[in-house]
């Protein structure tokens, strides 16, 4: 199996304007992934599928991840004037890293029996109406799973033939797998719900 650096190189040759970078994964699984910009994702996927020595003809798993806005504490050098003397102090500043929604595709090659190569796409923010390109034209197997991601995370996939909710009913307004979703008030509250409710 080609390693990911080679694949990145090949992709950049084939789709020159695309931005693709390696996202490393420190866990024991060693599943590193490729972050593709959403403008060229379909072309990249089509190339990965059709290139004879890569031949990722099978998209196994399509899923979304919701990364919340996070606050990162950073130490910033601050010059302060204390008693007429200039001092360089370090001060911790809380910085908000904007959250984003991410879609992950696990691609395998059935012909070469290789895999997985993991593709990721990220949205810019966590707005209720975020768009990403759909890979369903390339991989039919993404059809139902992308609908599920739309239903549960609220990512609208452009180019999907049938973008409807998959699991919840049509009138449902929320996207329940988002981390800041909490279920409606129950008349008979159970303790598990209390714990899960995000503290605000």
């Amino acid at each position, binding site marked *: 199996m080609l390693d990911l650096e080679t694949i990145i190189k090949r992709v950049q040759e084939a789709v020159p304007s695309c931005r693709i970078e390696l996202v490393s994964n420190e866990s024991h699984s060693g599943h590193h992934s490729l972050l593709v910009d959403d403008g060229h994702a379909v072309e990249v996927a089509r190339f990965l599928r059709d290139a004879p020595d890569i031949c990722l003809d099978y998209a196994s798993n399509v899923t979304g991840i919701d990364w919340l806005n996070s606050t990162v504490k950073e130490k910033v050098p601050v010059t302060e004037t204390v008693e007429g003397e200039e001092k360089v102090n370090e001060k911790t500043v809380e910085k908000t890293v904007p959250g984003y929604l991410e879609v992950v595709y696990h691609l395998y090659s059935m012909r070469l029996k290789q895999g997985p190569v993991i593709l990721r796409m990220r949205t810019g923010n966590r707005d209720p109406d975020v768009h990403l390109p759909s890979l369903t034209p390339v991989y039919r197997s993404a059809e139902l799973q992308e609908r599920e991601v739309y239903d549960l995370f609220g990512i609208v996939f452009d180019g999907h033939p049938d973008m409807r909710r998959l699991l919840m*009913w049509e009138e*449902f307004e929320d996207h329940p797998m988002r981390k800041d979703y909490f279920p409606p008030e129950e008349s008979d509250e159970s303790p598990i719900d209390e714990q899960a409710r995000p503290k605000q």
Partner: protein
Amino acid sequence: MTEDKQLQDELALYGVHLTLLEQVYNWGRSNSLWPLQFGLACCAIEMIASVTARYDLGRFGSEIFRPSPRQADLMIVSGTVTKKMAPQVVRLYNQMAEPKYVLAMGACAISGGPFKGGYNVVKGIDRYIPVDIFVPGCPPRPEALLNGIIHLQETIRRQKLSGPGKARHADRDQPSEYAIPEEGGRDLVPQYNAETWRPSWQGGGK
């Protein structure tokens, strides 16, 4: 009623057997409980297993699973009722012909079970329709379902058709159809049917 019973016993000593119409009526419907062929989730498999050779629900005359609610007497709510499914469950109940009974099979149908914390799970089907018998377990073993059905049969045999405390279907004041909840923007509307169920802090409960 007790006097009738005494009289009957006395007469039986002399070889005269009296049978009340009520008893025949109850005997008939208790021994011919045809379930609705209606499986929701995991418990449905155990429900099927209880029809198969080892457990054989057919011994009690209940092996005829009718797929049409019109011909069924017993609705076995076998599994998790989701909010998307609850309107259909209530609709099926409304479509069944009286006398009809509901058996809530498994933890999910009783209370939501392990999935109680979910946003799409109805926390017990008794919030929408009256349940005659609860069979606990996750899933209940087929024996438990058999036991539940036998208990239901006994309950039916004890039911009265007139006077105070008469059976639900014999009581004209009791509805035979219940409001079907609607799918709202965030949740089912209403969250429960106030005619049959009240939350515990309002003095209700199971």
